[in-house]
């Protein structure tokens, strides 16, 4: 050992080192204690704060869209389905520069200018933060693939599967079933914002709109864990949405189709009811629109055309078209005359083709009137007045009846009000009376007004739906029903459709009250006679000149069941005194409307309907064949079903 080293006091140095080492160790313990304090602060005292901060970081509550209830016709055929569509959703909060992302998307998916604008519009109507917002519906497969490849470039962008509405029968059932539209801010003001937080479509027309609450279901929730880029890694705490109720309608899509075929492109409407329940078996309005375009979205041009077309395809003629009922109103006048003692079945008048009020010059013409005064139906009683549709008889009858009696009686048939239970948008029509006329026109009720009303003209207006109720009331011999689309609701569970769906008697089935008209003076015999007179309209033939029922020649010769009906031909424009109606000289929209109301079979009727062909011409020649086509379809079906009356044959088959 070197000498210089030994000079050092080794023992003292060791002692010094040990002292220092102990001091440093104490310092180390103190400093680690400081860290431990900090950890205690973070992990114990403020744990809750950091816990929730951590949860906020990565856990998001997502809403789950309830599947919309399906809509079936009475035999279980799908009228409104849900289909899977890949949609593009974005979460605004996860995107740094929205315009960059949208530019990228535009290039990637080759979006049109309109789609771009649409994205911005939808982003602006975004309702809740941190919610993935659907901005493009129905992506193509190649678009989905391109998105998948470029995922890393597009934080905050997701492809989500969305259920969208599909209407398999398209325009055939458009007005009956209605359609859904994209939910707007305006809708959200009325709708429950919580329930609709995941919903993109809302029922806007028809059944879809009226039964929105049942069809919609209840929103579900799940928690989603997302990473720092906002991508969902996993989901948990799933509270599944409650699917909307499925609806079964009274509608029979076969009748609906038969009606569309029979109308053959003409403008018009058909409403067929089950007179026993008021259930709407068919509701056709032509021209129609394809409800699917409201789901997929359409260009401005298409929508503008739909809205501005003079044929108004969006307009539901069946419930909202208001027309003079013409001669189809005559059975009501006749029954009123019997009820108030103004006429009897035996009373006879001579019809020379025209009627004049005493002391007045104005001539009220029969449809058979000619310039040479050779028209008229000869000697006419009430029965003949119905099956020959004598105007003169009803001019005379109405002129002799107090107007309030006629109005009251017509009101009992549902005219002037919307009786439908689940079609709130349907029009009331117009049942004029002196009070109304004074208010609306500032004029008193003239005797001539009563005369016009006697043949269903003047200010009187009715919708095809209302006339179908009239037909049903006659079919029921005075039993009035309220029209209803819905047959029953049931849970949208595929199993339950297969296994338990029986035709009747289930909890979801709605009741169908039939109101017996409280008119003591009209007895059952009167109703039966009126039904017979209407039966003659169809079936009385081979009677020679001016002897046949008005519709016999057109529909009555080869009919193999008994049908009662009444034709009507409603004037649209007034024909000058002394001029004949000449279809050729009138423009398309000035021609007469053709009406036909009917029910069948005459005994125990199962269908009652009203057909209107706009500007179609004569009721018997134009509207009656349409009515017959629908009733034929119905009767064929009844016959096919009849032998298989056992309950099992009525099993509701899904899809």
């Amino acid at each position: 050992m070197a000498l210089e080293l030994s000079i050092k006091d080794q023992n003292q140095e060791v002692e010094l080192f040990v002292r220092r080492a102990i001091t440093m160790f104490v310092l180390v313990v103190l400093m680690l204690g400081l860290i431990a304090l900090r950890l205690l602060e973070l992990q114990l005292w403020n744990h809750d704060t950091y816990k929730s901060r951590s949860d906020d970081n990565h856990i998001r509550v997502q809403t789950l869209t309830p599947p919309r209830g399906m809509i079936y016709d009475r035999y279980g055929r799908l009228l409104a389905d849900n289909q899977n569509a890949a949609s593009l959703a974005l979460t605004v909060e996860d995107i740094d520069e929205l315009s960059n992302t949208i530019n990228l998307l535009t290039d990637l998916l080759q979006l049109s200018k309109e789609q771009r604008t649409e994205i911005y519009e939808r982003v602006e109507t975004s309702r809740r933060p941190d919610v993935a917002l659907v901005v493009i519906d129905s992506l193509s497969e190649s678009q989905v693939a391109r998105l998948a490849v470029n995922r890393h470039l597009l934080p905050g962008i997701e492809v989500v599967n969305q259920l969208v509405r599909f209407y398999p029968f398209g325009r055939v059932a458009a007005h009956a079933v209605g359609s859904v539209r994209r939910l707007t801010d305006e809708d959200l003001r009325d709708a429950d914002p919580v329930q609709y937080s995941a919903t993109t479509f809302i029922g806007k027309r028809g059944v879809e709109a009226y039964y929105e609450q049942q069809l919609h279901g209840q929103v579900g929730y799940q928690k989603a864990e997302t990473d720092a880029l906002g991508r969902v890694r996993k989901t948990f705490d799933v509270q599944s949405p409650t699917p909307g109720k499925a609806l079964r309608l009274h509608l029979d899509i076969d009748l609906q189709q038969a009606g569309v075929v029979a109308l053959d492109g003409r403008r018009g409407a058909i409403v067929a009811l089950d007179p026993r329940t008021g259930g709407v078996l068919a509701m056709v309005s032509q021209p129609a629109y394809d409800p699917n375009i409201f789901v997929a979205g359409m260009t401005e041009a298409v929508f503008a055309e739909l809205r501005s077309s003079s044929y108004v395809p969006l307009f539901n003629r069946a419930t909202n078209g208001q027309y003079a009922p013409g001669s189809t109103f005559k059975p009501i006048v006749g029954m009123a005359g019997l009820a108030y003692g103004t006429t009897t079945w035996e009373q006879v008048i001579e019809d020379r083709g025209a009627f004049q009020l005493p002391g007045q010059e104005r001539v009220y013409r029969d449809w058979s009137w000619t310039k040479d005064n050779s028209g008229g139906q000869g000697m006419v009683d009430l029965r003949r007045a119905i099956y020959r549709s004598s105007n003169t008889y009803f001019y005379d009858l109405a002129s002799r009846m107090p107007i309030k009696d006629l109005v009251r009686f017509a009101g009992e048939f549902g005219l002037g009000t919307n009786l439908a239970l689940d079609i709130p948008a349907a029009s009331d029509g117009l049942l004029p009376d002196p009070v109304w006329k004074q208010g609306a026109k500032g004029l008193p009720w003239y005797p001539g007004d009563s005369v016009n009303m006697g043949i269903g003209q003047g200010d009187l207006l009715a919708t095809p739906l209302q006339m179908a109720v009239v037909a049903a009331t006659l079919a029921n011999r005075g039993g009035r029903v309220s029209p209803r689309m819905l047959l029953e609701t049931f849970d949208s569970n595929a199993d339950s459709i297969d296994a338990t769906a029986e035709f009747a008697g289930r909890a979801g089935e709605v009741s169908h009250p039939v109101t017996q008209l409280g008119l003591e003076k009209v007895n059952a015999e009167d109703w039966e006679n009126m039904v017979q007179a209407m039966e003659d309209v169809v079936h009385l033939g081979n009677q020679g000149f001016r002897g046949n029922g008005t519709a016999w020649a057109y529909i009555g010769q080869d009919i193999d069941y008994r049908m009662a009906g009444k034709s009507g031909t409603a004037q649209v424009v007034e024909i000058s005194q002394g001029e004949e109606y000449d279809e050729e000289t009138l423009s398309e929209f000035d021609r007469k409307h053709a009406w036909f109301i009917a029910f069948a079979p005459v005994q125990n009727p199962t269908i009652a309907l009203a057909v209107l062909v706009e500007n179609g011409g004569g009721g018997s020649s134009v509207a009656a064949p349409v009515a017959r086509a629908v009733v034929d379809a119905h009767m064929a079906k009844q016959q096919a079903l009849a032998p298989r009356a056992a309950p099992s044959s009525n099993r509701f088959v899904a899809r």
Partner: protein
Amino acid sequence: MSNTDFQRSLSPYGAPADSAPRWYFRLHIDPILVALLSVLIAYGLVVLRSAVDGNEALFNAQLQRMGIAYIALIVAAQIPPHFYLRMAPLIYLLGLLFLVLVLFFGVSVKGSQRWLEVPGLLRFQPSELMKLAVPMAVAWYLQKRSLPPRSKYTLICLVIITVPALLIGRQPDLGTSILVFGAGISVLLLAGLAWRWVLWSVVVIVAAAPLLWQFVLEGYQRQRILTLFDPQSDPLGAGWNIIQSTTAIGSGGLFGKGLFQGSQSHLNFLPEARTDFIVAVMGEELGFVGIALLLVLYLLIIARGLWLATQAGSTFGRLLAGAFVLTFFVYLFVNVAMVSGILPVVGVPLPLVSYGGTSAITLMAGFGVIMSVRTHKAW
């Protein structure tokens, strides 16, 4: 360390206290320290396993490096202390030369120039070498002089320490600079540096703080300090790291969310989860209990290291061993304090736990030196 142990250790002077040469004396290994280090490394690997988030390759790479680190420990332990003593000035001067070279020819990574490269051959970080070289040089300088050192020698020591620390700070690598400085100062403190020096230094630093702030610290360093006091001022920028790491630790609570269950770590909210911020992963997944266990392990290692240092057969050995232990602690403290938001963010890994090879190898070599000075005969 009981008092009788201490007495025995002094006599006979310079020789191992329990003079009966045991097997580990011949191997120059301290079994207790190796055991403690192994527990720490194993614990660290468990947490790393979670932090690599299923990346097997990374985990295996770390296993390999740990193997190399063990070899470094064993090799360093076999080398007798007087070899270190002789090499100390040479290594120090070589290190300084390298640091100067880095300043001119260094390779830049992520905006700081820390690496020297012989293209195609090797690439290394001279500052890492200085973590060992600086305390060695200071111990070499002081071992010939009587302790406590006189002021003149103390000043010379400060020069030996400050020059490389400043060179490293220029790269810039604040983390390593602090570690090198801390390693050098540790030697002085253990050598008996007068407490009044320590006091005066603190006074001077506090007084000079505004000047340091203005002229020495870079903009980003100032920003880091500001962020420490108000992380929310820039939550997505400078504050992001600290917000996410305190959130991770705090949300762990007493027992943590469970291994592999940390949402902060596994959903990419936590930055540098497997390197500098691995303690946040531990805090989130294993909770306060998990970190406390870690700190206790570190404390045991420090205690054992310091005790071994007191048993060294020479002043050089004592100072060097003690300084390594304290450097190890500085590592630990700076890292955990940074991650838990007490100190500004500086790039210091958690010793022997963070992913990465260089620091683990240096540290294990350091522990090898500690064992060397303990187990070799006095000279």
